[in-house]
């Protein structure tokens, strides 16, 4: 008996001693992982894949690391105009087929090697290479000689060349002004590092992938897979050395965020849930909320080849019948903007004269009547030629928001006599169904980031590719006008029920100088400081 009691006592006291010892030793702020005044910690809700090649990355989490370690030729400012970064200046020919960049001459890679035009040429030649392990940046396929080079018929790629040590020239088959938005999205990687690895293996060579060498404000220090990526300041950064020595990206589950904030383990994080009680919890933990218009939207794609939806009046009716403002108010607590085309309402090319499709169920019913749908047998459901109007709303379970929005739409449609049902599947299954051109659907929730100058990529989901006017131009101005026309056509054709563009929010504790705007979260990371 006493032996049992003894054993018990030993276990308990051992546990207590361990805990006490663990607390006593260590840094003065007992739990804080922010090690003092020289570290800022940014929370990532998921682990980065570790693909730290700026041309091959696929997730926002890798992107966060990449945009601090690498630099781009150009970036965007708050007016969505392109500003120089690695490129000092650029000129375009009259016909838009030649774009020439003059590069900065004072930039060094983190390992000391100089940055030159050869690096830029190498980047885009690799993108066109037949062995390149991914799709490649879109504008590259518009350059001269792309087809032959990409199919392996020629050994040279004339589309991009270095005129001298700091000048790069791009020659296009057909002008593609949207190239600038791709330059903003994909930083430049180093020739002398990546030419050592066969292009075929670029996505699998973990050694090089996980030790990125760039020209950006922070140098890569360590990647503890599943836990954090730690970066340290680059004193020779051409934009001015960072004020804070260490920048750590820590993987913190969004459920844990509040605990981490209270504990002082994190300084900045994304807001994913605008629920007022959650926001209040963050504020109670000592953080402030930074809100800005977002660049990603959600919409329900309509299958335009579906016989029931072929008539544009029917599709327009579906948009009129959706109470989109109420969705924004109840699901996103008002933190979103309505949109009426697949583009960001802040986009300079977003036409101001689009049909707003203000919520009007009566007008929806009228349009449906004109298309031949009425309730002939009095059962509350519209029918035509003996067929009932059924509508299946499909969405993926990946997004919590989708599962809140879908039932609202269902109710909206049932109110005007459409027999709407819900179907939820996992994302991969939904994607496969949409990719299969032989499969029909009614409405499917999709979402994407609306990138600058990228229009029409999402038409695929509505089986509407190529139905709208083509977006082309020899320079940004003509390209922009053509884009506006395209958006007007899409708006008129009601190929989607555009739901919202959600605001982006950040929780910030103890940091000054954090100044994000759409498309650029980390642009000023070298100017962030810690509050005293």
């Amino acid at each position: 008996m006493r032996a049992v009691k003894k054993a018990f006592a030993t276990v308990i006291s051992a546990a207590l001693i361990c805990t006490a010892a663990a607390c006593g030793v260590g840094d003065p702020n007992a739990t804080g992982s922010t090690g003092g005044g020289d570290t800022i910690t940014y929370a990532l809700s998921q682990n980065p894949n570790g693909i730290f090649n700026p041309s091959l990355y696929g997730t926002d989490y890798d992107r966060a690391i990449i945009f601090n370690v690498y630099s781009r030729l150009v970036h965007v400012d708050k007016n969505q105009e392109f500003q120089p970064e690695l490129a000092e200046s650029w000129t375009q020919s009259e016909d838009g087929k030649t774009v020439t960049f003059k590069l900065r001459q004072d930039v060094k890679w983190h390992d000391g090697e100089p940055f030159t035009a050869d690096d830029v040429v190498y980047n885009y030649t690799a993108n066109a290479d037949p062995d390149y392990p991914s799709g490649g940046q879109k504008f590259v396929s518009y350059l001269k000689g792309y087809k032959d080079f990409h199919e392996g018929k020629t050994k040279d790629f004339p589309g991009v060349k270095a005129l001298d040590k700091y000048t790069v020239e791009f020659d296009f088959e057909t002008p593609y002004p949207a190239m600038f938005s791709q330059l903003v999205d994909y930083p430049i990687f180093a020739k002398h590092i990546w030419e050592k690895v066969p292009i075929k293996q670029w996505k699998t060579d973990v050694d090089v992938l996980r030790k990125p060498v760039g020209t950006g404000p922070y140098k890569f220090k360590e990647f503890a897979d599943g836990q954090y990526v730690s970066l340290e300041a680059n004193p020779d950064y051409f934009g001015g050395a960072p004020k804070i020595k260490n920048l750590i990206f820590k993987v913190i589950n969004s459920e844990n965020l509040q605990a981490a904030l209270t504990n002082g383990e994190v300084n900045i994080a994304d807001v994913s849930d605008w629920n007022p009680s959650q926001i209040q919890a963050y504020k109670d933990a000592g953080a402030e909320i930074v809100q800005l218009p977002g660049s990603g939207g959600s919409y329900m794609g309509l299958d335009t080849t579906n016989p029931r939806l072929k008539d544009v009046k029917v599709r327009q009716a579906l948009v009129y019948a959706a109470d989109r403002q109420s969705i924004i108010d109840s699901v996103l607590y008002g933190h979103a903007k309505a949109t009426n085309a697949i583009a960001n309402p802040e986009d300079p090319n977003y036409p101001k004269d689009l049909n707003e499709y203000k919520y009007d169920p009566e007008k929806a019913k009228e349009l449906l009547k004109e298309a031949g749908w009425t309730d002939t047998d009095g059962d509350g459901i519209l029918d035509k030629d003996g067929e009932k109007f059924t509508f299946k709303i499909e969405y993926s379970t990946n997004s919590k928001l989708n599962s809140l929005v879908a039932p609202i739409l269902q109710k909206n449609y049932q109110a005007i006599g459409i027999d709407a049902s819900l179907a939820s599947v996992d994302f991969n299954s939904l994607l496969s169904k949409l990719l299969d051109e032989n499969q029909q659907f009614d409405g499917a929730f999709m979402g994407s980031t609306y990138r600058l100058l990228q229009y029409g990529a999402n038409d695929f989901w509505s089986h509407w590719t190529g139905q709208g006017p083509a977006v082309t131009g020899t320079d940004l101005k003509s390209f922009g006008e053509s884009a506006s026309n395209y958006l007007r056509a899409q708006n008129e054709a009601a190929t989607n029920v555009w739901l919202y563009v959600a605001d982006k929010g950040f929780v910030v504790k103890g940091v000054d100088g954090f100044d994000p705007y759409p498309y650029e979260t980390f642009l000023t990371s070298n100017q962030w400081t810690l509050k005293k």
Partner: protein
Amino acid sequence: MFRYLLKRLMIAVVVLFGISVIVFAIVHLQPGNPYASMLDPDTPPDVREEVMRKLGYYDPLPLQYVKWLGRALTGDFGYSIQLGSKVSFLIGQRIGNTVFLALVAAVIAIALAVPFGFYAAIRQGKVSDTVLTVVNFGIVSIPGFFFAMILLKVFSIDLRLLPSSGIVTAGAGYVGGQAILDILRHMIMPAIVLMLGEFVSYNRYIRSSAGNLLSAGFVAPLFAKGLNRRKVIFSHIFKNAAKPIITILCLQIPSVLSGAVITETIFSWPGIGLLSYNAAISRDYPLLMGIVMMLALVTLLGNLLADVLYTIVDPRIRLSGKA
């Protein structure tokens, strides 16, 4: 004994093979194409088809299986679709963390279960036993994640005693003794959450096995011999009741490894649980197959080990001619 082992080993190999076939079939027969999200949506369909052909997507299922098996036998489980790197690399990186956590959880579970179990056995039928039984049921009824949340609230938010996630303090670069203590502090909460289920089963097991032994036929003669209560319990019953716990431990291995998923997610503990969850969600076939086969192997070995240990520990089985 040896023949027994050999027979068990052969059965294990056959079972492993069978598992690989079944899991391969299930994973590949699901609707949806895992490579769908790999390419841009506006990739022209002929390019898309070419890429998929290269990846072997259009091969008939048995052919795909045979190709996979051939490489798997050499230890090459292919490359993860989502993450790009070798499956064996990804698993190797993470499994250590899960095993470490599982081991610590097991140790804590046993260390607490033995004294409590014994106490309950000795006090069988009395109030203290009932109290302990209720506590046990209470623990088992609380979902792991809920308990994790409670721990987080108390220790991370209110008391600010323990860090809320990760294995080490990010970027601090501790070494030696400090590093060990750092890991310990990060590990305590997830280990406690993980060990709850185990604790209860070991506890009940010890209680019933010790309880049985206490009322067994050989106990009365021991008292008659003149041994005092403490010697009877400690020297005779304790040893006999506690030994088989090792075998139970081996049988618990698979459930601990899979139960770690939720714990690892909440505490951002970089182990195999989180990896397998993400692989399942994104239909990452190669990674999924690699993880499943590894878990199957560990389970089978655990079972085998349990059987072997049991024959060693309990001479009655060994000598009854099972060998």
